């Protein structure tokens, strides 16, 4: 649910990074945190296990700048990718404005991608959202690995509705900002349509 506060002159949007475990969702947020100037970001909160696996979510608020005099703030969340944390994943989708699906390009993670995508569609549905209608982009992460599946094959398997696709190597930042720009654009265009 986008929250437009004309009194404080702010737009607040919620973006959720979704995808299979160890796919690079947290790494996306960490890179964005690293490249953002101090005055435009809040704390990066990670609710993780002792082994750095996301337990509940990561959270990073970013101020994108002004649009027609309104401060545009995006609240970025990740979900825990591991299958057994489904209850937590569903909770994070509450009030979401846009979703980034972070797919793991490695050949052996194809099934995990498909399972996570199906889980996303179901969890969105449970919140009253339709994956076919909500702002959504696909990020193909880990493009640098030797066992990466060809992009065309991944697109054939994972494309939902002709959404924008971004190739990424989140560990070195490649494609991370482009992905955020892609989803931010969609969310703002959607907001313009509905306002």
């Amino acid at each position: 649910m986008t929250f437009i506060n004309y009194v404080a002159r702010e737009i607040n949007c919620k973006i959720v990074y979704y995808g299979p475990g160890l796919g690079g969702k947290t790494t996306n947020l960490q890179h964005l945190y690293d490249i953002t100037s101090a005055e435009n970001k809040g704390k990066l909160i990670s609710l993780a296990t002792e082994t750095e696996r996301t337990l509940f979510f990561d959270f990073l608020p970013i101020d994108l700048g002004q649009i027609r005099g309104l401060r545009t703030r995006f609240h970025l969340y990740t979900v825990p990718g591991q299958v057994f944390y489904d209850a937590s994943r569903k909770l994070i989708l509450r009030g979401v404005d846009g979703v980034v699906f972070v797919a793991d390009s490695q050949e052996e993670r194809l099934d995990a991608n498909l399972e996570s995508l199906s889980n996303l569609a179901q969890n969105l549905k449970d919140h009253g959202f339709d994956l076919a209608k909500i702002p959504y982009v696909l990020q193909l992460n880990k493009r640098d690995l030797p066992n990466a599946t060809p992009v065309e094959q991944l697109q054939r398997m994972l494309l939902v509705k002709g959404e924008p696709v971004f190739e990424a190597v989140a560990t070195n930042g490649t494609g991370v900002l482009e992905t955020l720009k892609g989803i931010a654009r969609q969310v703002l265009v959607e907001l313009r349509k509905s306002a």
Partner: protein
Amino acid sequence: MLVGRQPSMNLSNIILYEADYQRLKSILTMTQRDLPAELVLLIDRSGQQIAFEGSARDIDMTSLASLAAANIAATDGLARLVGEPEFSILYHQGKRRSIHISDVARRFSLVVVYDDSVSLGMVRLRVKRATVYLEEVFRGFTRRTETVGFAPRPAPETASPVYFTDDDIDKLFSFLKPGS
């Protein structure tokens, strides 16, 4: 939700005028002053902060709103697991500061941060009173939404700051460190 001087359509069918915002704010002010609390924060269930009152400047309110909403969501899940419709109050007691989180109209939550000079009983009493007032405000604009439906779309570039062009969107992303 929209907060504005002009009525507008929003994604979740609630219209909030600036006058409503001021009413919400005055309820928070009253609650904060009467306790006194360090911070009284009204959030929605997705973790967005709507209004606050208090002087706890050392608290990161964006993070607080996000974590409180997650806490509420997780507690809702726990309630359902044990067959309860809800646990309407969350309470965390610290040595110096405590946090009281309560439901407002099943859609919002009131977060109160207070120090050890304030008793839990007093917090519950004031929160209960504030909740009645807050729910009345929320009922008001829900009714109004049902009555008037969605407001007519304002003329582009004149009435709604939500109107913006693709160029405006392109100009965003000024948040990067130089050289990124």
